[in-house]
């Protein structure tokens, strides 16, 4: 038997893999919480699209600074050594290849590294693009954090081809789910890690795309 990771578990698993010195943008949802699991003494510098460099721990209740929010409009703090820039400079960071890593949530990821995370249908009346397309094409590495399967029907989010409208093509390097860590390689998804108790075959059963064993 195995136990899927909860959302914090996924975030903590991602945090393990971020080395000191990286410059990282965390998307809304699971990714936002990744920074909670990076110890402060390991200096990782977190960026927010709205021009914040060096996000610190969440403020203590009652001590929020109304002038300081992240890209999800949550109150944050700035750590010593941080800086503010305007929106165009902030996206120059994201689009100019200056992020070592961006972690985004997604609906689906394909075996060629396509990501779909902004719309569930091409004809959705209103669109929620935000900065995801900029981050997806601009970062040196894109990792995705999401549940392996959809909540209701248990469909695989790890796919040969994405069924939802794309955010960007061929950009995802790694996917962290509640079940496994998958690398996107030229030959497809390679299973890098699984939750304890899960077998390769059981994971493949829950996955639409073909999986390859590591090594």
């Amino acid at each position: 038997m195995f136990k899927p990771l909860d959302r914090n578990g996924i975030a903590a698993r991602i945090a393990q893999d971020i080395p000191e010195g990286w410059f990282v943008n965390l998307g809304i949802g699971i990714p936002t919480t990744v920074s909670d699991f990076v110890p402060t003494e390991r200096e990782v510098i977190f960026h927010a699209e709205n021009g914040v460099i060096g996000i610190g721990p969440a403020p203590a209740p009652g001590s929020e600074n109304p002038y300081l929010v992240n890209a999800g409009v949550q109150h944050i703090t700035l750590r010593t050594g941080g800086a503010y820039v305007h929106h165009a400079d902030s996206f120059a960071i994201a689009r100019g290849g200056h992020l070592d890593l961006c972690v985004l949530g997604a609906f689906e990821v394909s075996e060629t590294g396509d990501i779909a995370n902004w719309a569930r249908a091409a004809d959705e009346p209103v669109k929620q693009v935000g900065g995801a397309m900029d981050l997806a094409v601009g970062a040196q590495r894109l990792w995705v954090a999401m549940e392996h399967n959809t909540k209701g029907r248990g469909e695989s989010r790890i796919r040969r081809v994405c069924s939802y409208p794309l955010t960007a093509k061929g950009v995802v390097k790694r996917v962290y789910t509640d079940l496994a860590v998958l690398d996107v390689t030229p030959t497809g998804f390679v299973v890098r890690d699984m939750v304890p108790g899960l077998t390769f075959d059981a994971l493949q059963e829950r996955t639409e795309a073909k999986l390859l064993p590591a090594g």
Partner: protein
Amino acid sequence: MIDKFVSTRAEALAGIENGATVLLAGFGAGTPEHLVAGLIAQGAKDLTLVCNAGGRDDGPIADLLATERVRKLVCSFVRPASVAARLFTAGKLELEIVPQGTLAERIRAGGAGVQGFYTPTAADTLLAEGRETRVIGGRLCLLEYPIVGDVALIDAWQADRWGNLTHRDSARNFNPIMAMAAKLAIVQTAHVVKLGDIPPEHVHTAGVFVQRVLHVPV
């Protein structure tokens, strides 16, 4: 003596014409709410509004949209539960959705005299459908055009009489680039300072980009 301060909100917003393109800064912080209220009072209609997001059910953007004097909204996302989404669904609002970084870059281009640029962002997505693309250095890129405002509504922490501004913390966001990109940049500032009180190396938005400043104490 150059003095860009105006005394009243009506004076700050005077002259905005029907059909104007209005750039509205702010991202969670740094929204010039008093000026938005002033724009509603001023009454200009048939506006194109450019801002980061389409707002919620309340707040300054929702209030402005609810007047139905905005013809078109250019922004990076619209929440399904919002005045913007309901007006769009009812056919009362045009929407142009632009990736947030492309939006910021188009606004900067408007301020910097760049007449068009190529970006990989969104080039292989639905947002590129029917639009001009070009492969540069092996990457598919989308041609984007600058955004120029007739008016920008700007928030500042400090302002002097030449219109030099500082912005506090992350309230900076779109403020400097929207001031650059508009013919008439109207500022609400929390603090008025003497010329020279903002050291020349610490000016965030130079006075050259600012036309009117209204003191709105916090």
